[in-house]
């Protein structure tokens, strides 16, 4: 899993079956200082999160396993949790907010 911040959302009306009702969010992966690391990506959300929230996400096959739908869904990143506290090198990245 990786740490990321939700930056926006994506609306897609017509989708592959299995993706119905799954929320799509833009996320920005973070490095250990809480700074943006690499390109933003689109992730499914297994829970209710919105822009500004600190989250963890999983990629690869596990992204499909993280969705509530038991069937195998074609996704490559899924937000797996809302992060309340993230201590990194002695600082709490959750307290510092968006950068």
């Amino acid at each position, binding site marked *: 899993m990786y740490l990321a911040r939700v930056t926006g959302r994506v609306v897609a009306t017509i989708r592959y079956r299995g993706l119905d009702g799954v929320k799509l969010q833009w996320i920005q992966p973070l490095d*250990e200082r809480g700074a943006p690391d*690499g390109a933003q990506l689109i992730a499914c959300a297994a829970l209710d999160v919105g822009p500004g929230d600190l989250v963890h996400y999983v990629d690869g096959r596990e*992204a499909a396993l993280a969705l509530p739908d038991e069937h195998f869904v074609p996704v490559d990143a899924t937000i*797996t*949790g809302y992060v309340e506290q993230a201590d990194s090198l002695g600082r709490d990245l959750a307290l510092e907010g968006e950068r």
Partner: protein
Amino acid sequence: MFLADVIGTVVSRTEQIGALAGRTLLLVRPVRPDGSATGARPRIAVDRIGAGVGDRVLVIDEGNSGRQILGLPNAPIKTLVVGFVDQVEVRGKVVYEP
């Protein structure tokens, strides 16, 4: 598997993925054999050994191994801390020994 330094902890009390509920999540930074950071993005790993900040650890990042260790066939978890590193030797030379 790769070597990493535990650099922090992640708390997510309202865990909605059942397999993650109640598990300790550690922020780990991948390192080279000599301990320098590889520059790869830090990962969040499920702790299986009681590791903490400052420990150099062995991390697996593969889903099937992770699910076997946890005994959960459908868990969306692939990154786990599975060992403490005591020594690293490269070409006959000890490059890490705390």
